[in-house]
Structures are given as C-alpha cells and as structure tokens.
C-alpha cells in the first residue's frame, strides 16, 4: 500500500472521517422529533416558523426559513436552536442539522453576533480582497461579538473589494477602512455610510433619470 500523505489528518484505518469504523451505538435511542411538552419554544420563533410553513404546499420547504429564524434568535444553529425549530416543524433535529451544514450562512459553531463577510473571490481579489480580509481580521482582534469571515462572491463585484456588514454591502474598501468599519460596528453606528451600495447609482450613463 502506498504511503499516506502526512499533510492530511487521518483517523483509524487511514480514514479522513472520524468515527467511520466505530459501530453504531445501539444503546442510544434513535433521534426523535422533539416533544412539544418538554421543548419550550419562544412564542415569536414559533409564530415565525409556522407562518413560513403555511406558505408552501409542503411544510418541509420552510426548513431554511426556520433555520434563519432560529439562528437570528440564538446567534447560531445551536443544538437548542435546532431542537426548537425541529419541534415546531415536527422533524428530527438530525434532518435540520443536515440542512444547516450545507449552507454557508448557517453557523454550526458559536460565533459573534455581528457578521462581517469579506469577499475574497475573483473580482475582489483582483482589487485586494484578500488583503482586506486580513486588515479587517486584524482590526477586529479577538472581540467575541464579531464574526469576521472570508466569503465567496457576494454579488457586488462592482464595488470590489467589498464586504457585507450585517447584510449591508460596503465598498470599494481600502485597508485603511478596516479600523473605521470595526469602530462603526462596535459603537452601533451606520457602517461606512458613504461606501454603502444601497446609495449607489447605476453605472450605466444611459440609465440616468434625467435621460
């Protein structure tokens, strides 16, 4: 057998996946749909999820909206968040965990509440997106309230390099903006108001209203 690369962490029998050769723990009960009697769900969260379920021919379609709502409340898709959503939707927590792990916006580990997604995809990296991410990370330090992440193309390459700060798109950024961005965020101010995409006019001169 060929020697295995030492660069990749390997578990028993050479697998990269922990636990694959452990037998199933038969003493454990199978995952069940959480019991409403013993699973308290905040009223507002329940109302949000139930409203979402009513929009679709099949209630399961509300899985993503339910996870968004639960994450907004709990800060991340914690076991409690998943359990509450599963309880309202009458699904197993395992089902919702499988869904949550597929999507980048769902956090499966505890993170700060303030989201800063810095784009490092192609158009942004041509204009310094990767350096921008480093600058924002440095400015954020280890503040536990901040969740600074590199992100794939956010659909705003016209303001590259850019970031999404709690959903507000800002750019074009310069490394010097990082301090201001983090300071605005920490102090609850509007973040870099004159760099917000929402205030930007269309680039096409033929689209101007005076026309």
């Amino acid at each position, binding site marked *: 057998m060929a020697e295995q690369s030492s660069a990749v962490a390997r578990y028993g029998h050479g697998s990269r996946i922990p636990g694959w050769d452990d037998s199933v723990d038969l003493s454990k009960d199978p995952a069940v749909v959480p019991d409403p009697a013993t699973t308290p769900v905040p009223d507002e969260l329940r109302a949000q999820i139930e409203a979402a379920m009513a*929009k*679709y*021919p*099949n209630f*399961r*379609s*509300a*899985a*993503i*909206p339910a*996870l*968004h709502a639960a994450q907004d409340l709990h800060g991340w898709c914690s076991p409690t968040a998943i359990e509450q959503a599963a309880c309202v939707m009458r699904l197993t927590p395992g089902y919702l965990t*499988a*869904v949550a792990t*597929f*999507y*980048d*916006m*769902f956090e499966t580990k505890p993170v700060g509440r303030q989201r800063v*997604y810095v784009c*490092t*995809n*192609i*158009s942004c*990296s*041509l*204009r310094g997106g990767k350096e921008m991410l480093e600058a924002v990370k440095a400015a954020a330090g280890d503040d536990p309230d901040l969740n600074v992440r590199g*992100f*794939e*193309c*956010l*659909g*705003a*390459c*016209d*303001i*590259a390099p850019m970031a*999404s700060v709690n*959903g*507000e*798109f800002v750019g074009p950024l310069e490394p010097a903006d990082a301090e201001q961005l983090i300071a605005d965020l920490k102090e609850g101010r509007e973040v870099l108001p004159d760099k917000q*995409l*929402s205030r930007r*006019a*269309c*680039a*096409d001169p*033929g*689209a*101007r*209203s005076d*026309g």
Partner: protein
Amino acid sequence: MADKLLFDRIDEPGLDTIEVYKRRGGYQQLERALRMTPEEVLQNLLDSGLRGRGGAGFAMGKKVSFLPRGGMDKYLVCNADESEPGTFKDRELMQKSPHMLIEGMVIAAYAAGANRSFIYIRGEYELQAMKLEAALIEAREAGYLGEDILGSGHSQTLYLHRGAGAYICGEETGLLDSLEGKRGNPRLKPPFPANQGLYQGPTLINNVETLATVPHIIRMSGTEYAKLGVENSAGTKLISISGNVQRPGNYEIELGMKARDIIYGLAGGPEPGREIKFWFPGGSSSPVLKPEDLDRGYDFDSMARAGSMLGSGAIIVVDDSNSVVDVALTLAKFYRHESCGKCTPCREGTNWTVKMLERIHAGDATPMDLDIIASVQDQIMGNCLCVLGDAMAMPLSSMVAKFRDEFEQYIEDKRAAAGLGEIPEPTPIEIAGAAA
C-alpha cells in the same frame, strides 16, 4: 444603440414602490397580456427569440411550451440565486425595480398555466429581499396577485424564499431541492423540471432578468423585440463588468455590441499603463479569452465561436499586473468549496486541482503537473451530474492551455526561489507487471 428597456431611468426615486412604477406605465402590460389568451402570450415569447439570461441561454418561449397543458398544479420559479462570480445584474434590478420582475412573473405564469410561484433569492441579498417583500405586499393589495387577477380567471400566489449561501442552489435542480427544504443537491436529468420539478410538478424556471424582460416583450410585441440585437441573440442584455476596469458596474447593451466597446468604451478599460491579459466573457465559469478576441461581437454565437460562452453576461477583466496562477487558484478554491459532493469527478477533481495549484504556488511542482491538471479537467468534463464540475474545468483548462508559458515560468521561478534548482529530468516509473 437601442433605448434602455430594463435600466430605463432605473435610479428614479421611488421606482421600487407600486405608485411610481404604475405612474410610469407599470402593470399595463400585465393587463394587456391577461386580455390575450395564454397561447397568444406564448406566441409573443416564442417570436421574441428571448434566450435565458441565467447562463445556459435556452430559448425562453420554448421552455414555456415544454410544460404540459392541463389543470394539474404547475409552478413558476424565479432563479434569483445570482452566485456566479462576477455577476451582479439581478441585484440591481430587484433592488431598484422589483415590480418589473413581479409583473413579468405573472405574465409568464399565465402563459405557462402556473398558479403557484416562488422567487428563490440568495440569502446574502438582504436589502433586495426586503424590497421584493415590500413590493409583493403592494402587488397583492393591488390585486395583481391572488385570486382571479383583474377578472381574468388566472389565479396566482407568489412568495419570496431566501436561500442561505450555496452557489449550487443556482443550478436549477439544486434550487428545487433547496426550495423543498433539503440540502441543495442537483438531481439527475431527465426528467427535466418542465415535466417533474418542484414537488414533482411541472415547473418553469427562469432567471430574474429573463422574467423582467417579459413585460417589455408584451409592450413591443415579440416580433418587434426580436429586431433588437443580432441573429440568435435577440434583445438587450444586462452586463456586469468587474475586475481591472476603471468603471465597473452594470450596463444594458444591445446584444452584438463589440466586446471592446463594452470593456473600453463603457467600463473605461484597465487603469492607464495597464494592458488586458485575459477576460472572462460570461462569469467565472466561462473559458477565458485573450485581448485579440476583443473585436468580436458580444452575443451568444460569437462567444461560442471564440470557444467560450456568454453565460450570465458577466465580464471579468484581468490585467497584466496579475498572475494567471493566482487567478486559477482562487477560481479552483471557489469550485472546491461549492461542489455539493454528490459526484466523484467534481468532488475529488476540484480538490486535486486546488492541491496541484497550491503545489505550483509553493514552488514544489514541475511542468508535468500542468499535464496532470489538464488531464483532471478532461476527466471532469461531461462526467458529472450537473455542470458545476465543467464550470471549473472549462476555464481552468483554457487558462493552462493559453498561458502554459506563464505557468511554466512561474513554476521555474518559484522553484528557484525555494532553492530547489533545476527541474529534474522525468524518470520513467516502473510499474510491476507492465510490459517494458
């Protein structure tokens, strides 16, 4: 140059409200379409020659005509996932003129006989989702959505569904699974969504821009719309230009315009003193083109003849200050991250490609690695369930083929910098049992 259709006075204050939209003639095309029969509306779509604006460029009218007739539950889904790197046109349209999309969706659903419709918008577009949600409430109150719309007998619900960050949910069948509340893994085709789509019902899926164009086709008539643009590429197109240009942004052009006039004329070209090294004509999934292709027309056929594609209409310009190896690595990492993992050539191939490019980057490669990279791309192409695998393989193999010299030079320089010296002569590998 044709007048703007989609971007006509797009920055007019309040255009996102029904009041201003209607004052400008909004929803009149819906009224007009509902006075026609669905067949007449469909005929206009067929006549218009409108091709899908989401990437694949399939004729929209034809797709509508694939849906079975009859009274079963049929669905219309608008693909607003817009995650193809370099693409940001739907964002501007939804944010500034959400009612145009809604009007187009009701007309398209009427032609297709669909009574339930959804907009699947990427989760990161929070402002755009808010604008659409507000516009949907206005449209329902005004009776443009709901039961028996304007007394036509056509009923339709339309809901907004927010995704949560996954490029693969832009692929139409991945989108459907995601909308059904699952992981967004693409499905095997056939059956195509027109036969078995959302909840197994016949489903029409179109891009935001495609659907927003529909009211304009009704206003002008299909045959008039078809006069815009060039053969096989009718109409106007929203172009997103980004990367190394001086005026990045969205522009509406008539298809067939010279690529040079778009990149230099509209977007100002690269910074003074810089030259274009290569450009992606249709998002990061399109094979790259060189400066000598700039005099081609920007339309479906011309881009295909150049060996690339129009894709989503997103032009990414890379100037000579950037290394092709860095761009290739960024690109490959994106596809590795976004591969859903369902099929082996894509899941493993994207990973191998990243690892080999990283090896080149680290100065630990030989030119033979370039052949291996090329061969991995060959083995991905055509062997996957959806085209995400091909979407990496196509641009990547075009980069290696067109910039082989630069790759080799890079390998050599990096080896020298790492103190590894000359590239060793390749030694034939002895394989036990193989004939000498």
